[in-house]
Structures are given as C-alpha cells and as structure tokens.
C-alpha cells in the first residue's frame, strides 16, 4: 500500500491549515522562493531557451523510455551494480528490505527522496526491524515529528526555528538541557553532531536520484547539505531508489536540466553539491560502497505514457509550481493529503492513486496559470488539471449540486432569447433586493461567497436589454 492519502478531504485539510496560526506564520517563508527564482532567471538571459531544450530532452526520453531504461540498466551492470524493477510501492519496499536483510543491515541512513515517501519506505524498514535515519536536515526534523514532507524540496517548510528547537530538546535528551539553540546555526550544528554518529554506524545508505544517465549508468543527486554524499559513500552498500522517468540519455542532457533545476527551485545557480555515482567502489577507489543497487519504480507511471497526462512525466521536481501557487501559499503542503503537493501534486496524485481519491486536488485551483509560467519543463499544469475535471465529470464524480447547477444554467445559456429575458428579470429583481445599497452582505445559495465578501448588486436592466431598447429607439 502507498502512504495513506487524505486528499479526498482537501477542503477539511485546507480549513485546518487556514485556521492554524502557527502554520500560517511559518508559510511566509515559502514566498521567499519567488523573488529568488526571479533574480536567478534575470541573471541568465538564455533561461527561456534552456527551458525549451529541457522540455525537448524530457519529451525525447519519454518517447523512447524503454530503450533508455535498457541502456541505463546495461551500463549499471557493466559498472558492477544491479538494477531491480518494481511495479508498485509494495514491490519496491520488499526489494529494499530483502537487500538490507541479505546484507545483514541493522541501520540505514537516507538522503532525501520523494520516492521513499511515495512508497512509505521508512515505516516498512522499521517494521522489518531496521533503523532508518533521515539525514537531510528537513527530513530529519519531520522524521522526529512523525510527519510527512510539506514541500518536495523543503520538507520542513511548515515549521519555524522555534518548532525545531522544541523538537531537538525532546529528541536529544543526552545533550545538556541548558545548551542554547536560539540560532539556526546552533540547530544545524546539533543535527550535524547527532547525525555524524549515524553516518558512521550505517550499514546501508539509501538515496533518491535527480537524474539517471543512460550512457554511463550514473545516478545524480543534488543537495545543499552534503548529507547525500555521506549517505552513499560511507556504508557498505548504496541503494538508489528512483522512478523510471528520471532517466535521461546523456551527461550533457543532465547538465542542461541541472541548469534549470536549481534556478527554478531555490534561485541558486547550482545546488551546493551535485554528486554523481556510478557503480560500487572499484579496486583502486579510496572509498565508496562495496555494493550498488538501483530500484526503479513504476507505480503507475508507464500507464501515463502516450496518454493525456504524459507531459507530467517531464517534471524534474523543482517545486517552482508550488512556490508560486496562491493555493499552496495559503494552505501549505500537508493539506494536499498525499505525497506530492501544489500544482504538480494536483496533476500527479490522481494519476498515481486514482481520481476518486485525488480528484479534489485538480479542482482546488483558480487556474491562475502561474505554475505553468514558471515550470522549467513547460508542463501545461492548468490544462492537465482541467483534464482531470473532465475525467471526473464523465464518471459523474463531480459533486451533484455542481452537475445539476451546470445543467440548469446550460439550459438557459444555450437558449439566448430565454437567457436574455431571464437574466434581465434576475438583474432587475436583484437591484431591487439590493435596495440601492449597491451590494449584498448575504445571499441565499451564495454562502461560499457572502460568508467572506460582499457581492455587488446588479445596476438594473442588463446590458443587452438596455442596448436593444436604445437601438430600437435611436438606431
């Protein structure tokens, strides 16, 4: 089973988020990404051209995904590693657990990986008696809190430094209680200190991958903390877990994608660490793992190929869409109720867990289009959300009041003479009901609006009726 989803309760989740003062205070930080990305883009005149080539690279790869996966697998084998295909989350978890058991692993360190979240790996490892320690600072913090990430690149963005301090005092009981943790640097250094011991003790290191290179069998991760390097170099084995669409043909292709990735994500020209790993330690290597495994997860992605949601497989997980989304900015990531939040999550979630479960997400959008405007691989996110609404409507999953309301309205809207008459009567009646005040502070059937806002009353007769009266008299 995948991680339990509460996406169907998006509205309730959003309500909780909007009424959580602590969360609302913390969410302000995500808006900083907007200015940083804009500044990074302004520094690189060819950025838009790079987006076109990034899109072309991904489209080309998706069109020949089977070939590039085979080529990648061959190269991994040649370099001494092993590739394991997992159809779904269950299979992926089992492969990882079997690998850990076969190596007698008791303790695992982990680099940040959304695929790990998608397959619920930490719970599975713990259930199998294997300690799993997240080493990305944000992931480490939310692991302590028993939470899931609220953002795909900044997993603890829903928390403040104060929250983290409290968490550390609770978790690190063997450290002096009177130590100061007021400064972010102090938090960072404490996490370093605690994690250092975990790095040294780990039997297996598990990382995700930003890209898999078909021509060399290399996996690439980008991080800002260097934790990924320690995770994959120190233990005796390195397991990479990645979804199938992460493969790209060449190193040159990956280099192009890296140029748009960090700029779109955090506004950095490049992430602090870009780490390439190819196979296990070779005889003359001074360090590195003795075993190298890649678990390639499908989990519904191959079914998206060739369909109307294929474009979504271009996504390189930069998070720009959520950083720029008015809905994400208002409620944060947890409200989306599954692994992937924001506009990319609103398109991907119904693909991976079904429209019945995830259908709320593509509905909860104003279609403002800013996500598409900033997407480094130009995914038409609003259009794809609309496609989900169409699938929902076809299957009569849309709420009944919406379907009947639309039907009623469509009856008039497709009969212009009747519509003009009805609209004119309604407008005149509403003007009278407004009693010259010009607006309503309450209206029946419009509670979703008038609970929060006034609604302007019609001026009187409709434009069309005034125009006709005028044309009849004058023209």
């Amino acid at each position, binding site marked *: 089973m995948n991680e339990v989803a509460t996406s169907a309760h998006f509205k309730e989740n959003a309500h909780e988020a909007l009424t959580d003062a602590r969360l609302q205070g913390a969410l302000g930080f995500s808006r900083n990404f907007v200015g940083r990305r804009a500044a990074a883009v302004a520094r690189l005149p060819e950025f838009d051209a790079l987006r076109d080539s990034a899109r072309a690279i991904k489209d080309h790869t998706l069109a020949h995904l089977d070939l590039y996966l085979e080529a990648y697998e061959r190269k991994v084998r040649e370099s001494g590693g092993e590739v394991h295909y997992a159809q779904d989350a269950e299979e992926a978890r089992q492969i990882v657990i079997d690998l850990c058991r076969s190596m007698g692993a008791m303790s695992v360190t982990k680099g940040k990986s959304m695929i790990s979240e998608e397959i619920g790996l930490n719970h599975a490892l713990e259930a199998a008696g294997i300690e799993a320690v997240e080493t990305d600072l944000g992931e480490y913090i939310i692991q302590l809190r028993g939470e899931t990430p609220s953002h795909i690149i900044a997993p603890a963005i829903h928390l403040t430094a104060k929250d983290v301090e409290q968490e550390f005092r609770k978790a690190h009981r063997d450290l002096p209680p009177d130590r100061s943790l007021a400064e972010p640097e102090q938090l960072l250094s404490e996490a370093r200190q605690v994690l250092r011991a975990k790095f040294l003790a780990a039997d297996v290191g598990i990382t995700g991958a930003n890209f898999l290179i078909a021509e060399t069998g290399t996996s690439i991760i980008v991080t800002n903390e260097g934790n990924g390097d320690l995770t994959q170099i120190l233990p005796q084995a390195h397991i990479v877990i990645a979804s199938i669409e992460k493969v790209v043909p060449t190193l040159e292709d990956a280099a192009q994608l890296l140029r748009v990735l960090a700029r779109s994500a955090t506004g950095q020209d490049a992430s602090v660490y870009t780490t390439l790993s190819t196979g296990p330690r070779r005889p003359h290597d001074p360090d590195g793992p003795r075993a190298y495994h890649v678990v390639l997860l499908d989990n519904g992605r191959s079914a998206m190929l060739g369909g109307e949601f294929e474009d979504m497989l271009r996504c390189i997980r930069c998070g720009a869409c959520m950083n720029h989304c008015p809905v994400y900015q208002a409620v944060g990531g947890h409200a989306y109720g599954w692994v992937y939040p924001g506009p990319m999550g609103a398109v991907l979630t119904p693909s991976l867990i079904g429209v019945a479960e995830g259908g709320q997400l593509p509905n909860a959008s104003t279609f403002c289009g800013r996500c598409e405007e900033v997407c480094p691989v130009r995914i038409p996110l609003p259009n794809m959300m609309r496609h989900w609404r169409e699938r929902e409507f076809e299957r009569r999953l849309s709420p009944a009041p*919406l379907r009947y309301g639309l039907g009623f309205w*469509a009856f008039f809207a497709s009969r212009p003479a009747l519509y003009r008459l009805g609209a004119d009567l309604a407008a005149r009646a509403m003007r009278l009901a407004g009693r010259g005040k010009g607006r309503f502070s309450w209206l029946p059937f419009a509670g979703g609006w008038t609970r929060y806002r*006034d609604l302007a009353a019609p001026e009187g007769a409709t434009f069309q009726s005034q125009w006709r009266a005028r044309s009849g008299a004058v023209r």
Partner: protein
Amino acid sequence: MNATAASEGPTRTSQPRVGLFVTCLVDIIRPSVGFAAVKLLEDAGCKVIVPSQTCCGQPAYNSGDRATAKTLALQAIEAFEDCDYVVAPSGSCGGMLVKHYPDLFAGEPDLAERAERFAEKSHELVSFLVDVLGVQKVAARYDGTVAYHDSCAGLRELGVKTQPRRLLAGVEGLTLVELDQAETCCGFGGLFAAKYGELSNAIVARKADDIRGAKADTVLAGDLGCLLNMVGKLQREGSAVKARHVAEILAGMADGPAIGESQKGPRQ
C-alpha cells in the same frame, strides 16, 4: 467629461465591424462597463454591434463539462460570424475565445478551423485598442490614485500587461501606483470562489492587504470577476478603496457609483 480617443494607427478605408462580447458578468451586474467599451471602440473608429449572446462557456469548460462548453462555443462562433472582430472587456472570457475554443475542437477539422478563425479575430478590449487599433492615448480625466491588478488570464493567456498602463498614463489627473504583487491571483477563479470559499477568501485577503498597502484610492482591473472579488473583500473589511473596470476610467465614464457602491448616488 467626454473622452475622445486619438487613433494614430493605420488609417482605415472602412470602419471595422466590431462585435462586443459583453460577458455574462458585465451584462448582468455592471452594464456600464459594456457602455464604456462601446464608447472606447466607437471613439477609435469602430462600428460596434452587439449580437444576441449568452456565455462563452468557461464555467462549463473549467468544470469538466466539455460538451456544454462546445455547445456554447459554437453558439458564440455563429452569433459573431459577420463581425470583423470580437472584443470582450475581459481577459478571462477573451482567453476562452482566443486560447481555449481552438483546443475544444481539436480533432474535429472543420470545427477546429472555424474556431481558429474565430480566435484570430477575437481580442480583449484594452489590448485590442492598443495593439490592433493603435490607440496611443485616450482623452479622459480621473482625479485619483489608482492601482492596476493584472488579472491572470489576460496577463498569462493574452499578454495584457503594458497596454492598460500605457493608456492609463495618458489619463489626466490620474496617478498610477503599482501593487507589490500585481501579478498574483486575487483568488477569484470563477466557480472556485464559491466552491472553495474559505480558501478563496484567504487568497483575496492577502490581495486586499496589498491594495491597502499601495495607498491607492481605486483599484482597477480588466476583469469584472476579479474586481467583484477584490472589492467585495475590501468592503467587507470596511475599506473605502473603490473598484472600477479599467474601461470605465479610459472612457471617462467613472462618474456613477463604483462597483458595489450605493446606487442612490455617489457617496460622500
């Protein structure tokens, strides 16, 4: 005071026949925006006609009801068949005509071609005045400080950004100030505002803060939907900031009550 548009665009031998796509919201709630659009178009030398019309179909399209959207799209395409241009005082409805009608009929060659031709002659009002008719300046007056909100569809689907600002810059007595987040959605989103009222409210609350922070006395936009949302929030919060459609200002027709204001006469 009367406004006259000085067109410096290419001189035309015959008057272009412009069909006004008035939009449901303007038709029902604020007809004066429609009359302002007519005045701007006529001053720029157009012959304005208003074919019998209903809705562009966007509420159905965005609710996943493609069949109804297509019915209404065809109805609009037919109604405006004999117009040289179709002009809407809205970037959202304009975007529907220009960008989404062709998408609706993709895969149905004959209809797709009709939708394409319709899309090519369709425009949002202010960009039509500036980009197609070459209007550089309108001779209107408005004494006040205004902030212009970039409605999402107009901005991102149709590239409406500089045109309204250029024309506003020529309005006598008007001071234009920029919002800190002019390109951020106001949270309207059509049916979204009613379906997700609480969320929509959270988004528009931030927009209202931005508007108050800009110290403008009037907020303008090219879409009545966004304006109803923004001013509805401002009024609920007791703010005195007024809201008007940009066409009202450009046409010099901002003497009547602003959106949602008492209709017994201008306040104060």
